[in-house]
């Protein structure tokens, strides 16, 4: 059973968003890392790049597949998790600790389109 954490927001493409003030930390869920298998590379945008809700901002490559990363919200990248450059497997170890990008959220209303922990758990069970 994949781990789901209370208080985060989730997308149907299995990214999570952790909101802290005007910033959001975006990563892939435990369900996603489990489906992908051993992650060997995380293709991240650069700081100052813009991301758009519903559009891809990078990709996670595992031993099985390259899978697009879809941003749950729009905003500007203020930080990327550089630890993943040398140790992409951190995503497998703890997907929620090891966020991929930090963005300054440009439209907080977009958060309403995401699922909460309960809805996401139900969504995963259907999948």
């Amino acid at each position, binding site marked *: 059973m994949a781990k789901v954490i209370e208080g985060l927001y989730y997308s*149907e*493409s299995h990214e999570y968003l952790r909101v802290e003030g005007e910033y959001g930390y975006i990563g892939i869920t435990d369900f996603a890392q489990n*489906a*992908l*298998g051993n992650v*060997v*590379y995380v*293709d991240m945008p650069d700081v100052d790049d813009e991301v758009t809700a519903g559009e*891809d901002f990078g*990709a996670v*490559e*595992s*031993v*099985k*597949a*390259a*899978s*697009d990363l*879809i941003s749950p919200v729009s905003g500007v990248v203020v930080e990327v998790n550089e630890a993943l*450059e040398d140790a992409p497997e951190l995503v497998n170890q703890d997907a929620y600790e090891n966020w991929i990008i930090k963005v300054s959220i440009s439209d907080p209303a977009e958060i309403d389109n995401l699922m909460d922990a309960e809805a996401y758990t139900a969504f995963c069970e259907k*999948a």
Partner: protein
Amino acid sequence: MVYISLPDDKTRRLSFYLAMEEYVARKLDESDCFFLWQVEPTVIFGRNQLIENEVNVEFCRRRGIQMYRRKSGGGCVYADMSNIMFSYITAADNIGFTFYKFINLLLLVLRKAGVEATASQRNDVLIDDKKVSGSAFYHIPGRCIVHGTMLYDTDMTNMVGAITPDDAKLLSKGVKSVRQRIALLKDYIDLDIDTFKQLARDTICRNTLMLTADDVAAIEELETEYLSDSFIYGNNPKYSLVNKRRIEGVGELEARIEIKNDIIREVNLLGDFFLVGDLDALLKKLKGCRRNREYLSAVLPDDLSTVILNLNKEDFLELLLA
């Protein structure tokens, strides 16, 4: 399963077929699509591979081998007209299951052609324990794209030369060792390549969807991304090069080069050379340059011995480009 066919039968460059897969995945409603294609000699490297680690660019340019990056993961592949590419696009998110289905389709086709093949743990297809097909996977929300090679025959010299260092001795050795590890379908079946393709298509697909000229135009629009320098070279991860070299009359030099997207970010020079000028100013000139001979030669002054005693430009370029 629907076979996706093009309105004409001309051979296009590889980037077109990658864009076609993406177009089928993003725009068509069909849930299970399949098509076959072939290309003129081409090297295809994985989404996150460093081109200079995988491809002998010089060799490819010399022999007219095209080079493209794909969006799926995995390693570097050489393909030509005697290799058949299988593309499978399905409305699914389950990577493991989709891979399983795809590999089983390949095994089924081979069985119909009279060959018993097996799947390796890495999703290669083997005949007599030799690789005849390798696959790669690209997932977008709601759709999976899997594509695989099927080696009917190949130009072994091109295959080995395109993806290994440029050294004649290594090349002949490489050809021999690769020959032992790969299986060519023509050695196992009596069918010619076109008959085999028809068999594959008939085995996998019941009906056909013919794309229109408008579809082709839309695919060509998508293709522009695959043709851009920033896509082909740009996904190179940031990395550091450390090049060491003993230069006669100058000393032991070590260049540490920070590169991202094929662009030099930073160069540090260590060693026991004798400094006579402003080294920082010299190294600064290299920032933002592409690491190739033309660019570097253009930004560097012709006389470097005013900075480092006895250093000539050619040796310095060799150090940076090694």
